[in-house]
């Protein structure tokens, strides 16, 4: 038994444990997980234990808040007041490892709901570097320490998968929540663009970036998303939202699924595709129907998306252009493309987002969700970060974001859902893509799938047996 957020709150309510014990256990498990996987940049022991005592008092007094006493990890590009935000780098800001003066909106909202940050989690450098950030090194995958946990929300995924914390926060520019979620067997949400404010998050690409939770079940993601979403008056892209109303029914009658091929499946391992098929079969068995739907321009989404991301990243990092020689070389190799992207191409790329939105509108006119692979393969191998698709090796960046960048370009939400294990023993994942502000449909379908199957409960061998 390894309780997720919902189970842990139930255990508190039943008096089976309390936040002081759970936070102590999380900190202890984080230490063990870090030793095995290198997933943590900083544990927040004193801060977390003080908050746990307050949470225990609230449970005892009957004033518990919605996430009272639930420990969580924070990707280290997201500010936690009083704690440095390293961005996974030696090179951040002018004041080195000075503590953040305020928490990011997302951290503040979780803390206001009673959740307790217990760690700053490893990130690839600036959320764009390679698997081996020079300052902190690679994060190993709990399912196979010879593999990478994925990125860029690399330590967050590893810590949740290792059962050190029930959930963590990540950021997603081309799949950086969904990909490590997929490779670590987790449920991870990239919400609709603007649904979750990014105030207090070190930016990589203002156009494409979202904050999202990585957790162990769709029901947890739904709870967390309900706390995290909504404008904060500071992020200009966060806007008033419609209510989040996830159906509670156990059937999916009336839900229409488009299962596009083309660019989504032309590079896709057989085990990943089998997982997509399995998800679709289960959803259909629960009452959903499959309808036609293709996205004709999806094949250009990755290339054009990278043009936008790297141009914006090169712009953001221009201030440090005289010390790029101290960056992770992968960061420089990737974002340097953006230096020489002509302005007319960058702006045309921004206009391309609207064309993709129109293509998705055409699909969503007859469908509620798209079901696609989250990524083409199981987790990348260390040290080189290559992936294997049907026995053939591919470079990481040629493969990883083929199905995820669409959501970053259009703003469409995407939910990565574990669909089983490949013959290599590592998780595979499918992505449920919804129309803007229709996260509820993806969360509904995923919850029903997880009620009918147990893939999301599978635990890696490195996870301790009685973890929270």
């Amino acid at each position, binding site marked *: 038994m390894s309780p997720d957020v919902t189970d842990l709150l139930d255990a508190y309510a039943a008096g089976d444990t309390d936040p002081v014990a759970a936070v102590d256990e999380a900190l202890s498990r984080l230490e063990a997980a870090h030793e095995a996987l290198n997933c943590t940049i900083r544990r927040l022991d004193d801060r977390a234990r003080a908050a746990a005592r307050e949470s225990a008092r609230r449970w005892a007094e009957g004033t518990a808040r919605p996430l009272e006493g639930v420990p969580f990890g924070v990707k280290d590009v997201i500010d936690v007041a009083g704690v440095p935000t390293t961005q996974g780098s030696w090179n951040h800001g002018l004041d080195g490892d000075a503590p953040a003066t305020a928490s990011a909106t997302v951290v503040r909202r979780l803390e206001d709901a009673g959740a307790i940050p217990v760690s700053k989690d490893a990130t690839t450098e600036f959320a764009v570097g390679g698997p081996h950030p020079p300052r902190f090194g690679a994060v190993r995958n709990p399912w196979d320490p010879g593999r990478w946990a994925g990125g860029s929300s690399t330590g967050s995924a590893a810590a949740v998968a290792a059962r050190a914390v029930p959930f963590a926060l990540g950021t997603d520019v081309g799949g950086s929540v969904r990909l490590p979620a997929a490779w670590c067997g987790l449920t991870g949400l990239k919400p609709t663009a603007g649904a979750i404010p990014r105030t207090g998050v070190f930016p990589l690409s203002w*156009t494409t970036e979202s904050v999202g939770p990585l957790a162990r079940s769709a029901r947890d993601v739904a709870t967390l998303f309900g706390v995290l979403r909504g404008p904060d008056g500071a992020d200009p892209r966060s806007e008033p939202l419609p209510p989040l109303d996830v159906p509670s029914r156990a059937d999916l009658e009336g839900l229409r699924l488009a299962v596009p091929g083309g660019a989504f499946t032309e590079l896709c391992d057989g085990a990943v595709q089998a997982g997509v098929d399995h998800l679709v079969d289960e959803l259909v068995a629960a009452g959903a129907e499959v309808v036609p739907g293709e996205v004709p321009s999806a094949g250009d989404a990755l290339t054009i998306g990278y043009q936008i991301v790297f141009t914006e990243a090169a712009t953001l990092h221009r201030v440090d252009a005289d010390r790029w020689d101290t960056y992770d070389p992968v960061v420089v190799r990737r974002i340097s493309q953006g230096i020489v992207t002509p302005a007319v191409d960058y702006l045309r790329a921004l206009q391309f987002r609207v064309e993709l939105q129109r293509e998705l509108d055409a699909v969503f006119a007859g469908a509620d969700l798209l079901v696609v692979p989250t990524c083409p393969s199981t987790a990348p191998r260390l040290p080189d970060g290559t992936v294997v698709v049907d026995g053939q090796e591919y470079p990481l960046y040629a493969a990883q974001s083929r199905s995820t960048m669409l959501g970053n370009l259009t703003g469409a939400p995407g939910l990565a859902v574990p669909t089983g294990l490949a013959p290599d023993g590592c998780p595979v994942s499918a992505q449920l893509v919804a*129309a803007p502000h229709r996260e509820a449909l993806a969360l509904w379908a995923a919850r029903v799938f997880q009620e009918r199957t147990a893939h999301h409960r599978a635990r890696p061998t490195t996870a301790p047996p009685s973890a929270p």
Partner: protein
Amino acid sequence: MSVPDRDELAVLAARLGYRVDDEIVDVMRAAVEASEPAAARLRSRPLPPDGAADPAHGDRWVRP
């Protein structure tokens, strides 16, 4: 289809204030070349006739 050669890219990067070595210039050139087919397709394609010219439409998904 031609893209700027490596010397042109190196001069442009330097003019814009970026200090990149020869290896990175080669990487930039390869990336520009790899993205050129998709970029060229976009350049030659007319915009959708529903206000897509303003990138703000991409920031917020407005249904026509």
